[in-house]
């Protein structure tokens, strides 16, 4: 089964640190433990989402700037 990274908080998911900057992680990339894969904005504060497991071939399940619930699957990988 694919590995998953879930959103720890409800809010708005961002794939990049700022609008004009590149994504933290591109689709297809490999991920190591502790990598920041995105931000969740909750009540105007930003929280980094870090990978707790490593994996390959990252596949984002949530678009940039989309609303997420706590526990939503942000990313799947092998």
């Amino acid at each position, binding site marked *: 089964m694919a590995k998953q990274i879930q959103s720890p*908080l409800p809010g*708005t998911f961002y794939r990049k640190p700022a609008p004009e900057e590149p994504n933290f992680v591109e689709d297809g990339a490999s991920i190591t433990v502790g990598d920041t894969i995105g931000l969740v904005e*909750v*009540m*105007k504060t930003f929280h980094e989402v870090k990978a707790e497991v490593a994996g390959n071939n990252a596949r984002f399940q949530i678009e940039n700037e989309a609303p997420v619930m706590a526990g939503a699957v942000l990313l799947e990988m092998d």
Partner: protein
Amino acid sequence: MDLTGKSLFIANRGEIAVRVNRAAKALGMTVIQGHSEADADMLAVQLADSAIELGPPAANKSYLDIPRVVAAAREAGADAVHPGYGFLAENAGFAAAVETAGMIFVGPTAGTISRMGDKVAAREAAIDAKVPTSPGSDGRIEGVEEGLKVAANIGYPLMIKAAAGGGGRGIRVAETDDDLRKLIPQAQSEAAAAFGDGGLYIERMVRNARHVEVQILGDGSRAVHLFERECSLQRRRQKVWEEAPAACLSDASRARICEASVRMAEAVNYRGAGTLEFLYEPARDEFYFMEMNTRIQVEHPVTEMITGVDLVQEMIRIAFGEPLRLAQDDVTMDGHAIEVRVNAEDPSNNFMPFPGIVGAMTVPENTRFDTMLYEGYVIPPFYDSLLGKLIVHGADRDAAMDAMQTALDDFRIEGLKTTLPLFRALVRDADIRAGEATTSYLETWLESHEIDAA
């Protein structure tokens, strides 16, 4: 003026939408509530006569989408639009778009909003009206060399501020010439990136500063003040606790700052409710104008509690063209009021936001609680964390502090982490009780105090 049957579109959410709704209803108006997809079940929607969805949860696609908000208000046949605070409340383009669409904007003219929104222009307006400002650069500085010249005149420490900033954003403190050489280029590029305007100015840093602000009502020609508030207790430059009047002022100082504020409001032909914010330096007994907020403020209830004036109703009447109903002598002050901001944040865990489901609520007696909460409400995570404002009134400051302590101890909100435990500790703090807290007090206090989660 009879506003019965006129309709008001509320372009905001949360507790202020509820507050504006109640004022409009008291005036006999029909209320149309704009809301995002995430806010369909908010209290202000339930209280409104009708509601219109503005767009997706993200504020920039709903509450901040000027063409959409204006179109929704027109579609609903609104006579007027109330912007609340935050969102589009101080957006000159929005005010202009509302008026162009043939509706009334409840607030000052677009010209006043843009003038006061530019910190340098606002400071120049203050100087023109003989309102005291802190020694600093007269207008924008062009670069490091000019900054060093200004610094030589006013002395360190000083603050470098972004002309287009506000709410504490874009401020840097320099202690030496070397700091200044390093910080000016940084501040310039950061301001350009954050605000689209790299303009900077410099001001003297005020020691032991108290945040004092004066409430104004104006009708475009005449203005009155409704005394002042003190909001020195701040975390990350966000106010958490507000009082009226400011206990740190003598009657003579109060008269001075309030009269200066009226002078400035009349000089800019101010229309509606507005607030002039000052830093007060107790040792010098001097005020320094910081900025003018061209909207109703979060902490307006403490002013209402000591004056008995409904500020939101008055601003709506003024917007519809009614001349100011109050003469200065009509505005009197009775007792002391305190407000605390109940936020969905966990003060025992670095103020982590806590959007959750509201459980059983016990609101204390003899208080005013301006809120958007109801039992079972699911707090959306997309907006700020303000849940409501607990306000008490007493015959004097001591009585108000006692009332706040009792109210906080009786207040229960199940299901959420809130800032109530912080206030239960602050209300028992000797320095706060004595009225000694400066604008840096709370940050320092938080470093040395653990807050019980209970």
